[in-house]
Every structure is written in structure tokens, then in C-alpha cells.
């Protein structure tokens, strides 16, 4: 399949007097979150679009300089809130890279399973909401039912449905049990027929195809030049997936494919997300079968991780360690250096540029948010398309405003 033939009309000039301006957002049902677009229209043709963002800016990066590595995970959770644990995993991946911690095999597998569950979480909402914006309501509900089950799994593991705050430096909050693993297996079995149903609802749906094909075409050269990553880049034919290219966690041991398309339009992005969900299911099934036994937190660097409860109550060393980790004026030594670490989050490359100054607070914790970078290409994608295509392109970019503004 070659690059999709773009539907966009020629744009002659953006300064004609007869053009009129339409304010799209900040509170519009199809923006899903709080963002604003000022569109310049020639009839129904979008001539230019100027995004205005920052409505949800709440200084996450400034807060990160004040909270320690374990506390900041609660803030990170709230960035891309439709796949919260993917952010936590990315954050602690970078922190552990700075500290030089090698996770235990069980923790690697557990985090891999959670990361893939979050990928399903994100893709289900993205595909469902995209269909919802284009008038297909059922797919959204089917997707959301499955998301509810992932919420249950997150709650079972961490005690919190939404903002789980589950990972810790060198491990996770608490280990999962065999019943959780059985529930994950049951979920993957139940997911497959729903996925097929979503395919039947949308993939060959005449209206859906007409609204998606040839809309918002992004060439591979532009995708690379504009720093686009993740499913968007892969839908344009850029073969890059950090899970394969820079394997982290347990991805090197597991068998899965990197899904790519060549169309580069909204429909290709939908297809890539749909196929990625099946790959995620494949990864979860392998990982849950092979999850190793043993401790979930690292033991070798015990001054970083909270000790187990019996150790706290029954030994003085455990009590001291508990105290050292939790007290704000204590903490563990951190190298005075800086590191960039990234993981493949559902939306693309989620990276952190972390500067350590010797204390257990980040001196600077820059987030590289995929939504921010993807939204910056929106004017490029929409130029020349119809007004009704705005929601199609927005849906396919999967913009999460909390991550966009931080």
C-alpha cells in the first residue's frame, strides 16, 4: 500500500479578506480535553489552524524538582491519564537508569505486563473516541467495557483504579498474586472476541472509511523531521519501536511484531492501533505464562527500596531502612549526573531528561511528552481539509491535554 492519496485541496492564500475565523474549543465535545484551535476557513475548507494550549498547565516539572523520586510518581500518573501506569514505568525507568539499578526478573515481567495493559487501555479509548467523533457510538462503548476490566486489574494490583502510583524505585508497591495472573489470562481471552467485533464494526464500515481515508496524510520524511514517534510514525512507514530498538524490561525475551503501515493517513493510524492491540495481547499472554518467581523488589541496593513489613516490625535493620527511605531529610545517594531515558509509551516515545544533584530529588526532570510534539504537527495535517475532518485528525493524534500542558 503506497502513501495514501491526500484529500486536501489546494490552499491559495491565508490572508484573503473573505476568510472567516472559527474558534474550536477550549470546551468542545470533540476536543475531549481542554485545548483550543483557531481555524481560518474558506467556506468549509480549513486554510490555517493555530493551536492555543496551556489551559491545563500546572507546573508538573517544577513540582518534580521538589518531590522525591517516589513521590513524583503520583504527579507523573496524571500526565497521560488514560494510560497512567505507562508514565510511571517510563519515569522509574529513567530514575533507575540514573541510579544504575537492575530490576529483578519478576519485576521486569510484571512491569511489561502492566505496560502492555496500558497500551490496550490507551488504544481502546483512542480508537473508540475516534469512532465516536465520526458518528459510530457502539465501538466506543465496546472499547470502554474492556477498559473497565483493565481498571479492575489495576485496582487488584495496586488498590487504585485510575491513578495507581504503583511503581517504586527498584520495584513496585507490592507484588501481585496468582489470582491476579489468572484474572489477566481471563481478560486476554475475553478481549479477543471484542477486538474482532471492533474490526467488524469499523474496519470495513463505509462511512468510517470515507471519513478516514486520505485525511491528514503524513509522509515518512515529515514524520521524522517533525519528531513524530509511536503509532503515528509507524502508520507513516517509519519502522521504529523502542521495545525492539532499545529493548528494556522483558521485551527482549518476548516474541512480537512491530506493526507498520504505509498510508500515513487517519485510517492507517487506526489500523496500526488495532493491530498493536493484538500484539499487546500476545505479549501479555507470553509474559503471564513465563512470569518468574522470586522477589519483586531489588535486594542488592537495599537502601533504596522499602523493606517488607515483617522486616520492619521484627528487625532493627529493617526499621532503620524504612526510616531512611521515608524521612524527607534522609534518602539515598544519587549520582551527580544527568541522563535521558525513554520508553515506548502507547502514544510514542515518552522520555525524561533527568538531572541528579546528589540528593533523592530530581534537580531537573524534563518530560518529553509525545502529545505535545504530535499536536504541533496538527496545522500541517489539517491544511486544505474540510472542517469536519478536524475531529477525525484530532482523534487520530490522540491528544491528552494533561500531558500536553503538564
Amino acid at each position, binding site marked *: 500500500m503506497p502513501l495514501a492519496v491526500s484529500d486536501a485541496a489546494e490552499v491559495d492564500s491565508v490572508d484573503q479578506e473573505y476568510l472567516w475565523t472559527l474558534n474550536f474549543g477550549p470546551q468542545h465535545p470533540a476536543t475531549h480535553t481542554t485545548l483550543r484551535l483557531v481555524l481560518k476557513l474558506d467556506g468549509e475548507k480549513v486554510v490555517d489552524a493555530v493551536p492555543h494550549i*496551556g489551559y491545563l498547565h500546572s507546573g508538573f516539572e*517544577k513540582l518534580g524538582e521538589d518531590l522525591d523520586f517516589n513521590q513524583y510518581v503520583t504527579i507523573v500518573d496524571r500526565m497521560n491519564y488514560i494510560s497512567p501506569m505507562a508514565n510511571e514505568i517510563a519515569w522509574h525507568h529513567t530514575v533507575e537508569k540514573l541510579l544504575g539499578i537492575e530490576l529483578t526478573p519478576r519485576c521486569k515481567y510484571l512491569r511489561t505486563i502492566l505496560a502492555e495493559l496500558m497500551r490496550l487501555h490507551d488504544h481502546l479509548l483512542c480508537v473508540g473516541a475516534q469512532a465516536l467523533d465520526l458518528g459510530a457510538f457502539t465501538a466506543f462503548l465496546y472499547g470502554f467495557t474492556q477498559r473497565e476490566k483493565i481498571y479492575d486489574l489495576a485496582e487488584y494490583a495496586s488498590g487504585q483504579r485510575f491513578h495507581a502510583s504503583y511503581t517504586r524505585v527498584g520495584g513496585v508497591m507490592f507484588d501481585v498474586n496468582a489470582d491476579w495472573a489468572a484474572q489477566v489470562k481471563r481478560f486476554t481471552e475475553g478481549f479477543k472476541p471484542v477486538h474482532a467485533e471492533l474490526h467488524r464494526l469499523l474496519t470495513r464500515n463505509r462511512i468510517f472509511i470515507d471519513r478516514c481515508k486520505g485525511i491528514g496524510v503524513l509522509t515518512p520524511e515529515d514524520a521524522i523531521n517533525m*519528531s513524530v514517534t509511536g503509532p503515528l510514525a509507524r502508520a507513516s512507514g517509519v519502522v521504529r519501536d523502542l521495545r525492539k530498538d532499545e529493548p528494556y524490561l522483558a521485551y527482549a525475551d518476548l516474541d512480537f511484531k512491530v506493526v507498520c503501515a504505509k498510508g500515513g493517513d487517519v485510517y492507517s493510524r487506526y489500523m496500526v492501533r488495532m493491530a498493536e492491540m493484538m500484539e499487546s495481547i500476545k505479549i501479555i499472554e507470553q509474559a503471564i505464562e513465563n512470569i518468574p518467581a522470586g522477589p519483586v523488589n531489588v535486594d542488592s541496593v537495599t537502601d533504596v527500596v522499602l523493606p517488607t513489613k515483617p522486616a520492619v516490625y521484627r528487625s532493627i535493620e529493617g526499621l532503620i531502612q524504612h526510616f531512611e527511605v521515608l524521612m524527607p531529610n534522609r534518602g539515598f545517594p544519587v549520582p551527580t549526573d*544527568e*541522563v*535521558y531515558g525513554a520508553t515506548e509509551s502507547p502514544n510514542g516515545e515518552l522520555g525524561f*531528561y533527568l538531572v541528579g544533584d*546528589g540528593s533523592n530529588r530530581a534537580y531537573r526532570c524534563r518530560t518529553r511528552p509525545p502529545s505535545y510534539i504530535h499536536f504541533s504537527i496538527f496545522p500541517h495535517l489539517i491544511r486544505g481539509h474540510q472542517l469536519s475532518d478536524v475531529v477525525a485528525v484530532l482523534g487520530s493524534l490522540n491528544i491528552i491535554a494533561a500531558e500536553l500542558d503538564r
Partner: protein
Amino acid sequence: MPSLEEIRAKVGAEIDESSFRDNRRVIVPAEKAFTLLAWLKEQGFNMLVDLTAVDYLEYPKAVDRFHVVYVLLNVDSGERLVVKTPLNPPELDLPTVTTLWKGADWMEREVYDMYGIVFAGHPDLRRILMPDEFTAYPLRKDYPRKGYGERHNFPVITRSES
């Protein structure tokens, strides 16, 4: 990936190099930064993954006030390279790299918004996350976490005035 000797031969001898974990860093003076980045793009670093800045005001043993950080990626080979440029007030300006990588557009706007570093030649250098009338640069280390009371001094529009 170009070696330090190749970079020095191309741009000048005052280039420094360091590495930590799997990150390789090149530190280049501000006036040579654009030459180096343009050359690195020709060498295959076709994606600008991230562009940010760090304020080293309170950092132990820091020499320069700011560093602007470019994280580059060669998509074909998967190599990464971090380029850092020191900046000291009052000369807080750098040439824009939007001419090399279009993805730098919003990232440079964010750095301008948060640190007040001006990217000369940027097509649309406005504040992006903070409101336009904001005067401070919030991610600088001398900006207090509570702010200077900007929030309390927002003009209040009553129903009768609107």
C-alpha cells in the same frame, strides 16, 4: 556515529565530550552550536527527539548558568547523541534549529516560555504554556515555587462588567 576527533576537526577544538550510562554527550560553545547541529544532521541524525534547557544556578560545582540540551537520534541506525550548549546571562540567545528540524518549533517555544532563552530566527516565538501577559520565567531556579502572586493578581471580571 562521528568520533570526537571528527567533530573537533569540523567545528573546532573547544568541544568537550562525556558519557554516562548509554548517553554520549557533546558540549559545544553557543556560537558553534548551529554549525555542529547542521553538520550532525548531515551525518544522519535526522530526528530531534527533545530540546530542553537546564538551569544550573544551584547545581554543585556548576560553571555556566544554563545549558540548552538537544537530544538527537539517527532513526536508521538507532544511535542517540546529546548536544549541550552553555549559556550565560545576559546573552541568552541561540540560533533556531527549526530550519533543520521542523519538530523544534514548539520545543523552542517552551524553552523560551520557561527559561527566557531566545531562539533567533524562530518563525513564531511566543509564550506557549503560560499566558501571554506573564512576565517571569517559571522554571528558572530563582523563581519561587509559590510564584510571585501572579495568580492572586489576575484581573477579576464581574458579571456586570462582562
